[in-house]
């Protein structure tokens, strides 16, 4: 068992409020810079990093590079700017790749 810190990366409007519940907030609009920030945060014991999905969409390396590692957990959150639902699509794609059928899509059709 160990302790980890939590950070949020994104454009200022989407993430500033997380400061209010004690997370470390780093604001950036540049997807490439976001990647560098993550690299730095990982060195500083940050275990959970929330990233806005528009940044991750523009720079897939943000998720891909840390997908197979136990730490850190890179989790996408929606940003105030777009409602692209990239995170859900990404999840669907991951399911598709892993088991070959799109389970979630079926669910969506049923409901």
């Amino acid at each position, binding site marked *: 068992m160990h302790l980890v810190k939590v950070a949020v990366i994104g454009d200022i409007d*989407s993430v*500033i*409020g997380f*400061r209010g519940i004690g997370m*470390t907030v780093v604001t950036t609009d540049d997807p490439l810079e976001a990647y560098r920030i993550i690299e730095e945060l990982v060195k500083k014991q940050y275990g*959970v990093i*929330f990233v806005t999905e528009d940044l991750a969409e523009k720079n897939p390396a943000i998720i891909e590079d840390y997908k197979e590692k*136990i730490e850190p957990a890179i989790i996408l959150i929606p940003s105030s700017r777009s409602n692209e*639902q990239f995170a859900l699509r990404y999840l669907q794609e991951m399911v598709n790749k892993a088991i070959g059928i799109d389970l979630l899509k079926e*669910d969506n059709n049923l409901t």
Partner: protein
Amino acid sequence: MAVMRVNPNRMELMRLRGQLNVARRGHKLLKDKRDELMRQFISLIKRNQKLRLEVEKLLSEYNREMVLAHIVMPKQVIETALYSGYDNLILQAERKNLMSVQVPEYYVQDKTIIEDYVDEKASKRADIQNKSATDIPYGFSGVSGELDFAILILRKVLPIMIELATVEKTTQLLAGEIAKTRRRVNSLEHRMIPDLEDTIRSITMKMEENERANTTRLMKVKDLILEKEIYERRSRNEKLFWKD
């Protein structure tokens, strides 16, 4: 259909048979592992999707509240208010073993105080604790209530987000493991096992062929020897006959 390049002898045959046995057993085990991983993955995925939808719903609510807050207050006020708090959220991370995949599990700690602050005076620490009990990390003067709503929504969404972090990381790791296992199963099933079977078959066939060649050769040699014998006896008999 690919026969490996090996010498067709009994030694190789035995080695390949052993390999085939191991490959078959490994294939069965890996298939079981894959099935179980998938079962767990499917239940996880459903939970993951549910949590994500919930988080997205709450965060869009939060975004709405933030927009309202931006209407009644200048941006600078909001930023100063929020930056006056501490970034002291610390999670407990545990490692769990799920089908021999190491997955993390995060919990919100009760005392979310960074170690730097713990070093300071006890009274100050109590202050911080009281402050966190009031839920709002900034003073109320000069800050309008809309921001409070936004922060309260975030407080509500925090445990869900942490659970989402656990579940989503687990799904990512499991997905990787499933892909790996599937590749292994497929390469065993479609490559390694058929290749071994083909090679074993070709070796047995070659060895049988050798056997047959050997038999016919022996028969031929025997015939030759017999023929020679017969000629010899016949000529001897003839000699004896003419003598008389």
